[in-house]
């Protein structure tokens, strides 16, 4: 019967050899009974009836057992359950344990069936005794393990196929291993059991046949009355027809051994094929190689190894690619770093020289700062002197202002006096004018008097000249007074201007004094700042010296770094070569699509 491709009918297909094995055992038992003549001809009806009943009952029970033991697989095959991972795992577990359960069930079936057969047949048969019942039980005991073993081997191969089909529905090999971890290592015990069954069952069968035939021959010979009959009985006993069934049993044992070897060899062959393929560099995704006990452990470990190897190869390939890329980048970076280190060393040389120049400049600045500090001190002293001079100048301006005010007052008083003098002169002028007028009239009267008045006229004329002289003098005095008035006025104006100028000078002197105070304060601050600058410059000089020393150290470290970079570039080149070798090695393996993902 061809194995189904999917889950449909898989449960029935898996459980079918159980019925076949039981049927073969039953047939062998009947054949043994017939050839050995253990059952009288009158009792065959009962025997066939009971065997048929047992066969039907056994097949029915096996059918029920198969449905129960593979219920999830049957439900999945009939579509009553959705093939979810959970159900698939349950079906897989049921298929895995089904051969052993089948073995046990068949064995129990044969034991119970043999006892029941003996118990039923002996009372129902006409010519059967309890010895025959014991032989029936013995037949069941000898054929039961053999049938169970045959069923086990047949079912095991199908169960493996069922496991592979179930796994193909959505379970990875690793999941299958996780569902059915290889915990039981009973192959030795199985081999012992197998050997025991293969040796003991035929032995018992042959023993029964031989004993029964021997007893029967002895009975026939002893019952023979004549030598011819005895010779005929001896010849019949020596034909050995009853041992033919033993030969069939032996054949069955051989078949069972063949099946056992096949059951053990199949997964090992598959593992060997896969291992050979891997050795040739063809690493496909792992597959489920169903087996039992140590072989299953080997298969599981092999599947895990395949998966791990695939992942490792993929990772190794990626790593190799990445290492190759990274190494190329490292090589490029190393080149840049090397050139950068050279440039850095060159720049550091320049920087070091600049730093030394800076140190010299700082030293010179410190010296200049000292000079500036001394100049600032001198400036401060000069500003102090200037402030004292400005204060003295301000006092002098104040005194000048007071003197000018006194001069102005004196000029005003002088002007008043000059005005008084003018009034006096004016009065004198009026008197002189009246005197002149009187002299004129006197001279006129003398003239009128003629010769008599001549002397009078002369006196009057002389008086008149005196009066005119006085008038001229007063005129001159008035002129002088006017000039004095103008001069005093100009003096007043000049004094007022001088006062204003003095006030402006005083204000300016105050401003100068204030400015000089400010200059003095600024000079003090400048002196303090210059002193601070001088101190800071000295510290800067110290720091610059330290910087120059540090730059020297950095330069040495940079040169060492440059040498290390060159060594690293060489190491990167070696690493690139190694990455190429690694890539070449990894590319020898052909990793399947599932592993690539």
């Amino acid at each position, binding site marked *: 019967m061809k194995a189904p491709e999917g889950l449909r009918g898989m449960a029935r297909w898996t459980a079918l050899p159980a019925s076949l094995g039981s049927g073969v055992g039953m047939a062998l038992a009947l054949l043994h009974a017939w050839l050995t003549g253990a059952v009288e001809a009158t009792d065959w009806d009962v025997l066939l009836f009971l065997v048929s009943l047992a066969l039907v009952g056994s097949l029915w029970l096996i059918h029920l057992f198969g449905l129960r033991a593979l219920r999830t697989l049957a439900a999945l095959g009939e579509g009553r359950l959705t093939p979810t991972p959970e159900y698939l795992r349950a079906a897989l577990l049921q298929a895995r344990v089904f051969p052993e359960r089948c073995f046990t069930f068949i064995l129990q079936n044969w034991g119970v069936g043999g006892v029941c057969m003996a118990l039923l047949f002996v009372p129902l048969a006409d010519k059967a005794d309890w010895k025959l019942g014991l032989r029936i039980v013995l037949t069941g005991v000898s054929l039961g393990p053999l049938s169970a073993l045959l069923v086990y081997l047949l079912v095991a191969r199908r169960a493996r196929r069922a496991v592979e089909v179930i796994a193909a529905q959505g379970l990875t090999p690793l999941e299958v291993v996780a569902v059915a971890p290889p915990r039981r290592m009973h192959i030795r015990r199985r081999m012992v059991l197998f050997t025991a069954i293969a040796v003991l069952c035929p032995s018992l069968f042959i023993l029964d046949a031989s004993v029964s035939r021997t007893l029967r021959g002895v009975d026939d010979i002893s019952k023979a009355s004549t030598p011819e009959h005895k010779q005929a009985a001896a010849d019949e006993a020596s034909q050995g027809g009853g041992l033919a069934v033993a030969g069939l049993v032996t054949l069955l044992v051989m078949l069972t051994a063949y099946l056992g070897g096949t059951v053990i060899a199949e997964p090992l062959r598959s593992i060997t094929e896969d291992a050979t393929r891997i050795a040739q560099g063809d690493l496909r995704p792992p597959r489920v190689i169903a087996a039992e006990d140590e072989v299953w452990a080997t298969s599981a470990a092999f599947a895990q190894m395949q998966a791990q190897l695939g992942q490792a190869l993929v990772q190794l390939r990626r790593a190799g690619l990445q290492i190759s890329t990274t190494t190329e980048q490292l090589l490029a970076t190393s080149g840049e770093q090397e050139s950068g280190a050279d440039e850095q060393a060159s720049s550091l040389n320049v920087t070091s020289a600049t730093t030394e120049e800076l140190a010299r400049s700082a030293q010179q600045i410190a010296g200049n700062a000292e000079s500036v500090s001394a100049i600032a001190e001198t400036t401060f002293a000069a500003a102090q002197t200037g402030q004292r001079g400005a204060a003295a100048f301000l006092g002098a301006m104040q005194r000048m202002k007071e003197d000018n005010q006194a001069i102005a007052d004196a000029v005003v008083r002088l002007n008043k006096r000059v005005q008084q003098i003018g009034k006096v002169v004016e009065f004198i002028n009026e008197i002189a004018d009246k005197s002149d*007028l009187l002299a*004129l009239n006197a001279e*006129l009267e003398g*003239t*009128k008097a003629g010769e008599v008045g001549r002397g009078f*006229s002369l006196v009057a004329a002389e008086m008149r000249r005196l009066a005119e002289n006085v008038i001229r003098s007063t005129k001159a005095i008035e002129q002088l007074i006017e000039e004095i008035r103008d001069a005093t006025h100009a003096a007043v104006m000049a004094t007022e201007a001088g006062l204003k100028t003095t006030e402006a000078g005083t204000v300016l002197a105050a401003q100068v004094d204030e400015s000089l105070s400010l200059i003095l304060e600024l000079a003090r601050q400048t002196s303090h700042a210059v002193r601070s600058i001088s101190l800071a410059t000295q510290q800067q000089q110290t720091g610059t010296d330290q910087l120059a020393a540090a730059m020297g150290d950095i330069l040495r470290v940079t040169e060492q770094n440059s040498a290390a970079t060159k060594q690293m570039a060489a190491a990167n080149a070696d690493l690139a070569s190694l990455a190429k070798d690694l890539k070449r090695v990894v590319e020898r393996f052909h990793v399947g699509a599932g592993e690539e993902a």
Partner: protein
Amino acid sequence: MLLCHAGPHRLAFRAHEVASITSPGERAVVSARRAFHAADGASRVLVSAAGGAVGVDALEIEAESHPVLPAPPAAVRASGGSLQGFVLVQGQLWPLVGLVDFERFLRGLGGEEAA
């Protein structure tokens, strides 16, 4: 004889026609400058016996007698009859006018100018 000046011009009066000499401001005076069509002004005032007064700028008294030279009738008429002739004093000709007539003549000039 009184030798007077009215501005740049010269005038001479007989001494007996002058009653007194006063200062301006004591009475109403007509200036001799008016005869020469100049602005009024005087520093001395010649007062006649009739009370008339003529202002002159300066004067001096000449005690010596000098002959009077006749004046042309046209000049006499032009002076309103006040011109009596000319006298030669100190090498210069001085028009000799009567004080009263000259004062009247000057007042007449003042009325004409006022008209």
